[in-house]
């Protein structure tokens, strides 16, 4: 694999910044990104497709009289295209309106050290190895039960690198790897089809268990075959990481982002130091977490990643800031400016959003439940009210728990309520943490969740 070297990426960024300053920008920041991904795809029960994607580009942000312009291009080996990009950013800025709250790009700060974010072995993974992992996973799923049908899945590896330079002297380069395998299955029996059940492994270093992924996905879909309706009432619900990730992404995460707080779009406004959730919950945004999926040296503005306490024993401790929102309050950025490659300007997002584990094992948590539900997959969480936190979603499916045992699944069960009320009613926090996208969390148990049966 041929990748852009550190010095090539840094000099591309430096040259773009230099050009912008020469052409009249008062400040400039260039971000260079490279992503190379290889994927072996499973479709309709067989390995049938492969992907190899190379995406590189540069984006530049310029400031002229407190107006901001941005431009990007993926034509990086042509000096003219880069010059055109700089001109586009400047013309965009000149067309724009000045922002009295603009207080400058971030200043240089030392980066912390991070670990387990790059693995030579992952970077060097060949297609043969990926195909082997995919076959292993597929066979493991098929061996569980004949009624299992692997619908979709894959095995992939990616190399990602980024370089940033700004006119305040920030300069940074980082590279990392990600490897993953995933399988979505359903079970079919006498014309009945289960919802899609899904398992996966994702890691920064080579750490995959395709047999586990295949088996778990298959077992879940088989257990979804036996289905009975449940009654409409308020009950105990165990939220697995799948469900938590869905529910929090469109609600709690918005509420702790400084931009939303400043713009009156967060129920957490004015609640700093107040108890906002159950005291069982402690949440850190940890951009330095060892091996974390979102662990990098710096954020999308070249600000060092850090660990920020968001909620401690239920008490709100910090919002998440990028440079702009921090300076608006004369604070420091928490290193939460996120970018989608070279195509976008930075915006606030979580790094590794870490709900700290408790000491209740998964089995103990199930045993505690006399009458309740356990929820894996949710449908429709993105339709939640992103400001108030109200949600109305379907569990696909939910599993019923009776006297500490999972007895059967139930389809079409709806959960409705307000996420901030649910978070106040957390009674147990598990010890079984795992990472899913930005979220790293254990299972949590919530009391009094409104369930609408069929």
């Amino acid at each position, binding site marked *: 694999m041929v990748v852009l070297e550190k010095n090539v990426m840094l000099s591309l960024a430096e040259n773009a910044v230099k050009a912008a300053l020469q052409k009249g920008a008062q400040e400039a920041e260039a971000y260079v990104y490279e992503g190379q991904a290889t994927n072996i795809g499973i479709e309709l029960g067989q*390995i049938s497709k492969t992907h190899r*994607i190379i*995406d590189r580009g540069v984006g530049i942000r310029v400031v002229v009289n407190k107006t901001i312009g941005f431009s990007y291009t993926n034509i990086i080996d042509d000096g003219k295209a880069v010059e055109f990009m700089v001109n586009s950013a400047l013309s965009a800025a000149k067309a724009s309106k000045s922002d009295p709250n603009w207080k400058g790009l971030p200043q240089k700060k030392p980066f912390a050290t991070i670990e387990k974010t790059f693995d030579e072995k992952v970077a060097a993974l060949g297609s043969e190895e990926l195909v082997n992992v995919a076959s292993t996973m597929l066979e493991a799923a098929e061996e569980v039960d004949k009624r299992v049908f692997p619908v979709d899945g894959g095995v992939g590896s990616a190399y990602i690198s980024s370089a940033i330079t700004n006119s305040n002297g920030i300069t940074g380069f980082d590279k990392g790897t990600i490897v993953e395998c995933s399988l979505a299955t359903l079970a079919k029996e006498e014309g009945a*089809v289960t919802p899609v059940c899904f398992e996966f492994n994702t890691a920064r270093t080579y750490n995959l268990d395709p047999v586990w992924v295949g088996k778990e996905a298959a077992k879940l879909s088989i257990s979804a075959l036996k289905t009975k309706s449940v009654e409409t009432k308020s009950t105990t619900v165990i939220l697995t990481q799948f469900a938590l990730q869905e529910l929090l992404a469109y609600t709690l995460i918005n509420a702790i982002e400084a931009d939303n707080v400043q*713009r009156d779009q967060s129920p957490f406004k004015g609640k700093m130091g107040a108890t906002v959730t159950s005291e069982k919950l402690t949440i850190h945004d940890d951009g330095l977490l060892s091996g974390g999926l979102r662990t990098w040296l710096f954020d999308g503005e070249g600000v060092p990643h850090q660990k920020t306490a968001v909620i401690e024993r239920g008490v709100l401790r910090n919002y998440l800031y990028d440079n702009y929102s921090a300076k608006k309050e004369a604070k420091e950025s928490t290193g939460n400016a996120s970018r989608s490659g070279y195509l976008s300007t930075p915006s606030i997002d979580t790094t590794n959003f870490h709900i700290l584990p408790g000491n209740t094992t998964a089995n103990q948590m199930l045993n505690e439940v006399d009458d309740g539900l356990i929820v894996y997959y949710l449908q429709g969480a993105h339709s939640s*009210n992103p*400001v108030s936190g109200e949600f109305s979603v*379907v569990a696909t499916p939910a599993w019923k728990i009776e006297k500490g045992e999972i007895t059967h699944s139930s389809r079409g069960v709806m959960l409705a309520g307000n996420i901030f009320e649910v978070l106040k009613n957390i009674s147990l926090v598990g010890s079984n943490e795992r990472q899913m996208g930005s979220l790293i969390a254990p299972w949590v148990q919530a009391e009094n969740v409104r369930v609408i049966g069929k």
Partner: protein
Amino acid sequence: MKDLLVKINNVATEKFGAQYAEARAQNLYKTMLTIKEERVEAAKQGIENGVALRVLVNGAWGFASVGSFESGILEGAISDACRMAKLASTGLKMPIKLALAKVVNDRVVSRPKKNPSDISVEDKIKTAMAVTKTGLGFDDRVKSCTMDYLDLTGTSFFVNSDGTSIEQDKLYVWGRLTASAVSGGVFTFSREEIGSTAGYELFDEQIPEKLGEKVAKRAVDQLNAKSLKGGKFPVVLGPNVVGVFVHEAFGHLAEADLALSGGVLAGNFGKKIGSDLVTFYDDGTIEGSFGAFRYDDEGVASNKTLLIKDGVVAGLMHNRETAQKFNAEPTGNARAEDFRVEPIIRMRCTYMAPRDQTFEELVEKVKSGYYFKSFRGGQANLDGTFQVGIQEGFEIVNGEVGPPIRDASISGNTLETLHKVDAVGKDFLIDPGRCGKGQTAFICDGGPHIRLSEVVVGGSA
């Protein structure tokens, strides 16, 4: 460009024995704006060049994407794709074949009345700012207004080893406004999207001030809305909700790849799965609409596909691979977001055909239920479970539309719910939107007002 792409495809067919090869080269220009209240967060302009290469070798797909038009790089990429496909093909149980598609040589030119490329960034900012200003000024309780704007122009060159060669202009203009209102500890949120493939004349129809006012008014009205009671209720759905209902509760299941994956429509072709009033189309030919295009990303002409007629499943949306499996014609539904991704089966403009009822007739038969006017999000599952979130709704009491409710959703199973369509209106509206299926597609959907005799409503009260 054509000669280059022919040469690259020949590498796959001649050197690696590929059964099929296609190359899709695109150059895309984008302008994006994010306006928060009266602040231009950033005015953004960008250029992307790249090629998507797809080959079929021994019945397995190989796909490669690179951001370059350089012959040597493209030859390397297509060679990699062929080798990887060959490797993946070793365990195939059912080798992939393609349905025949008409060989096309065409140049599709877009003819906007107002080309977004000719409009200055200043003017675009002025337009977007007019939206947020009106929204904010509508009422003191409106606290935030965000307008996102995007225009995309460019050209897509498509050449395949069957001899098809198409040069097609791309043009999209899109905007989204969100507003939030706060009063007495109650937070509300309202959103609306607009979009067109015609041109910047979109803003002659969607007057910026009116859009701002509409979204702000909804956020303010919601301040007085009550949480609703969950359970089974009769409901009247507005065209905006019907569109998403058609899209989520049926559209995804009628995507042939998902039908093959075990989706519930697979075994129901030609069978009656809904009431006589249910007729759905997916139509890529509505000129200027957000889901319209002439040729899809496999070079197949876009058409109007009948999906369900009078309750009977009549057709699916196909690409060339699924059309071969179903012994059907490709329908022109293979779409790729850009050159970074492969084409997959996507909807275009999916809608329900109108019938004969007035809105009053639909509502007057409901003793106790809801009128859901406008949606926020929706999702489908292969087993037929659908969910549609509601951002604006009202109670119906004794045949009359009553007080507003907030943050509800409806859910059910397609095979049960389509039988519950018991009355269909004579009005008709289409709204633009975006659909996520790993990639984002620009689509639209709609229909008339309809009534469901019963559906599960998720509410927390």
